[in-house]
């Protein structure tokens, strides 16, 4: 496997300026599946919502994103990474996904592989990290140069607030790769996600239940409306162009302490007058993510737990396109 160091733009700026703006690195327990072979990109293109050709190093050598957020219709959201540096190398694409669906995704890919010249295999020797820049506002695009043990350091394609994704060999020392960074507790990473309203994994995006558009996949750059067919494309395209999306996943918070059992997934959310406003999806502590009717987002909401009414508040994420944040 080719190891390549990526120099992020603004390197000099970063080294000169910052003190105390330590980036936090979070080890993610997500699985990495490798798809390699001459037909890797073409193979995936027919199965996913996003345009895999964006990963082609030839198309836009300066801009080619190394990661593309996609969604297997009926399966959970995955992010793709390009490992090969040029078209001279054999295409090698990595998919990051929730560990619990690794087998399903492998089966799904093998079912549709037929005669394509691709090999599909998990990469247990690699580890995935999220790198969230420190509290300082400003340049999320600048990070110190990453050294050898890292294979790839690239902005998270979903939203700028999610910082960077890092793929390194298992057991790599993060402070060698990103000097000045600190390894954080993955629970803080999840809190950050829920605060921003970024769904990830099977709890936030249950397979067969979560719909791409309601899950804000389009806001997270995960759907291409100009590429060819994939399973579910007709419904996705039609809803986007003609339908109205009435419900979306939104970050919620509970201002009052919760019972120790927490909030059950699927709990009904009501408005003050008792109208159905949505369903709680998943969360941790006083934060979470819920599927809510957009009409009720700014109203005071509650969930009935046992005999009590637990208050909750929803917020429209800042990273949503302005037109949607009505």
């Amino acid at each position: 496997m080719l190891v390549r160091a990526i120099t992020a733009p603004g390197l000099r700026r970063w080294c000169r300026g910052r003190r105390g703006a330590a980036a936090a690195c979070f080890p993610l327990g997500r699985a990495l599946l490798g798809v390699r072979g001459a037909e890797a990109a073409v193979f995936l293109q027919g199965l996913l919502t996003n345009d895999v050709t964006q990963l082609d190093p030839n198309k836009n050598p300066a801009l080619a994103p190394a990661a593309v957020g996609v969604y297997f219709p009926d399966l959970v959201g995955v992010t793709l990474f390009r490992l090969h540096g040029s078209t001279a190398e054999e295409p090698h694409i990595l998919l990051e996904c929730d560990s619990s669906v690794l087998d399903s995704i492998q089966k799904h890919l093998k079912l549709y592989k037929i005669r394509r010249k691709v090999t599909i295999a998990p990469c247990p020797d690699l580890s995935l990290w999220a790198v969230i820049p420190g509290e300082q506002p400003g340049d999320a695009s600048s990070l110190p140069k990453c050294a050898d043990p890292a294979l790839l350091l690239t902005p998270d394609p979903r939203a700028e607030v999610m910082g960077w994704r890092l793929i390194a060999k298992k057991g790599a020392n993060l402070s060698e790769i990103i000097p000045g960074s600190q390894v954080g507790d993955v629970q803080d990473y999840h809190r950050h996600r829920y605060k921003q309203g970024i769904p990830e994994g099977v709890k936030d995006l249950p397979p067969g239940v979560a719909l791409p558009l309601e899950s804000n996949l389009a806001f997270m750059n995960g759907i291409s409306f100009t590429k060819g067919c994939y399973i579910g494309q007709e419904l996705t395209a039609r809803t986007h162009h003609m339908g109205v999306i009435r419900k979306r996943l939104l970050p919620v918070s509970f201002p009052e302490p919760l019972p120790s059992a927490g909030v059950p997934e699927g709990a009904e959310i009501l408005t003050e007058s008792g109208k159905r406003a949505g369903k709680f999806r998943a969360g941790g502590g006083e934060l979470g993510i819920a599927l809510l009717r957009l009409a009720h987002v700014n109203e005071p909401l509650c969930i009935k737990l046992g005999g009590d009414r637990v208050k909750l508040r929803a917020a429209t994420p800042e990273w949503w396109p302005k037109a949607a944040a009505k």
Partner: protein
Amino acid sequence: EGGGCSGFQYKFSLDTVINPDDRQGQRDCGARVVVDVDSLAFVKGSMVDFSQELIRSSFQVVSNPQAEKGCSCGTSFSVKF
């Protein structure tokens, strides 16, 4: 091949080469349809015809007993398991 709006899609091409893993069918007029053995599992029992329509004129799989449903343009299909 895999892909398309229903999961699998038919792919026709004109060829002069027959490979060891190909299977063929022939009509009296001399036209031959050749399918590789992997793909055959998906299209066994299908009828192939040349179809002239507004959307296109081409060879099409006009009925496939293995297929559960198909897309409206006829290129993609899903399989009964």
